[in-house]
């Protein structure tokens, strides 16, 4: 069995009286792609927010490569290898496409406090950024402002930002949401490539069952914030508890 990269242990968050994520314990291993499914409001994105640190946990632990990161800030978790792409596009709108990706690579190279060199002079950062843009087929848009991009291209850039970060744990939150039928495959192929090439772990929140069936090694189901099922895709999809409890119809359609 390969190494566990990320682990949540009884992870819980309460907003007032409402328990949004309820004692979720789960380990994610290297080389594995886990799809996280569940109806709207099941707590998928909140679970992501707890792992990446945007929300503080009420109880439980998050461990990244064996290290407890529950009390660390978002930036610290990122520097330790946790990367996330967002469900709602979350970029630097007034900067160019290339500059957005360059900022990520620059962060990885720890060049942020370099005050006296020219940003454009760091050729290795620009080259690496261009290589990432090439992969998401955005290199011809390098000098466009992000705010001028189409929604589909902004989604691609969102994915590019995560790839540029080259983290140990990739977290994709509905990466193809709102993308057209021709655009989505570019992103899905990329995720498949990532999964194939790397010894990283990938977490994917996704609604489309065909996507999950082709990509996922494992599915976990969240229901009312709690872990309802966990296992191989065929197994989980077939299990009575999931079928009846909530997925029923969606699965019959596939």
């Amino acid at each position: 069995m390969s190494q566990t990269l990320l682990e949540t242990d009884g992870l819980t968050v309460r907003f007032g009286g409402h328990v949004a994520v309820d004692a979720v314990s789960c380990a994610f291993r290297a080389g594995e792609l886990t799809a996280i499914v569940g109806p709207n409001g099941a707590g998928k994105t909140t679970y992501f927010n707890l792992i990446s640190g945007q929300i503080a946990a009420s109880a439980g632990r998050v461990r990244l490569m064996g290290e407890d990161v529950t009390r660390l800030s978002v930036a610290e978790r990122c520097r330790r290898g946790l990367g996330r792409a967002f469900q709602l596009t979350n970029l630097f709108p007034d900067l160019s496409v290339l500059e957005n990706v360059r900022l990520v690579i620059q962060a990885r190279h720890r060049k942020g406090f370099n005050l006296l060199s020219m940003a454009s002079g760091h050729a290795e950062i620009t080259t690496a950024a261009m290589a990432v843009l090439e992969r998401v087929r955005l290199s011809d848009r390098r000098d466009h402002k992000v705010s001028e991009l189409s929604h589909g291209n902004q989604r691609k850039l969102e994915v590019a930002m995560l790839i540029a970060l080259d983290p140990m744990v990739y977290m994709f939150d509905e990466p193809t949401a709102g993308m057209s039928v021709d655009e989505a495959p570019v992103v899905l192929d990329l995720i498949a490539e990532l999964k194939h090439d790397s010894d990283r772990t990938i977490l994917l929140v996704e609604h489309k069952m065909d996507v999950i069936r082709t990509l996922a090694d494992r599915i976990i189901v969240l229901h009312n914030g709690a872990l309802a099922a966990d296992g191989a895709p065929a197994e989980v999809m077939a299990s009575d508890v999931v079928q009846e409890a909530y997925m029923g119809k969606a699965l019959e359609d596939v």
Partner: protein
Amino acid sequence: MLVNLISGDTPRSAVLTVLLLIVLVCLAGAPFLFPGVRSLETAATICIFILLVASYDLLLGYTGIVSFAHTMFFGLGAYGVALASIHIGRGWGALIVGSLSGAVAAAALALIIGLFSLRVRAIFFAMITLAVASAVAVLVSQLFNITGGEDGLTYLIPRELTPAFRMGELFGVRVNGRVLNYYLIFVACLALFLLLLRIVNSPFGRVLQAIRENDFRAEAIGYRVVWYRTAATCLSAAIAALAGALYAIWLRYVGPDTTLSFEIMLDILLMVVIGGMGTMYGAVLGAVIFVLAQNYLQNLMGVAAEATEALPILPLFLDPNRWLLWLGLLFILSVYFFPTGIVGRLRSGR
């Protein structure tokens, strides 16, 4: 080489390039192109305000932080030079010690304010700077045995920088220590402006812009946002203090009205907005236009009032005492027609 000097940040507009070159030539040759005490006074003020406004733009335009304490840092530098010149005695050493200790004190104070308030919401930082700046202004006017209170301080600077130091004639203009003093200020302001231009175009500067655009995402790709905001605040404060030190060297006087008043803070804000936030070159145009208007609008209006004496009502509006009215109107119009400032407007074409 030249592109390197301006850190690859070209004006990106033909009109802007021409305007900037005109400003550069006029300031570089000010003592010879516009001889006279008053015009040299204006030129030096323009140099210093370009630097002061540019250092504020690093904070407001590039990092997206609103501060009301910029004149406080400006004042710290100015009082540093004044106090050093009084207590160490007239000399170059006092100027250097005063400027540097002013800059260090400003950066340290900015660090404390930043660490306390930048963790929280940006609006909180603005309130804290307002409170601290007001407290310092009161303190300076109360501690009169140290600061001279409302009267301020006068002191001696090295003789080489005063009108008494004569060096003969050049191009028909009498060159004295005052001209030398002007060039000290011009060169120092130019060098520090180029330094600021480099900083905003460095990897650090890019992070500041990223934070301005989306601090949430900047944090999520691994930048410790609070550190960057604090560092930007300290840098901006230190450079504002150096601008204040230069102002003190030029005026040979410091007082609350010339360095600490809230009016100057408002002027700085207006200059940044008129010129164009987040552009650096906006500071140049904003400061030039504003200082010229401040110094010459009254004269211009005096002339206009005389010319229209025969007409009804009009002379009343053109009375030199109404100059603030026109300055206000100028400001409203410029914000209305150029919401991105003059530089933003020129760069967007047409």
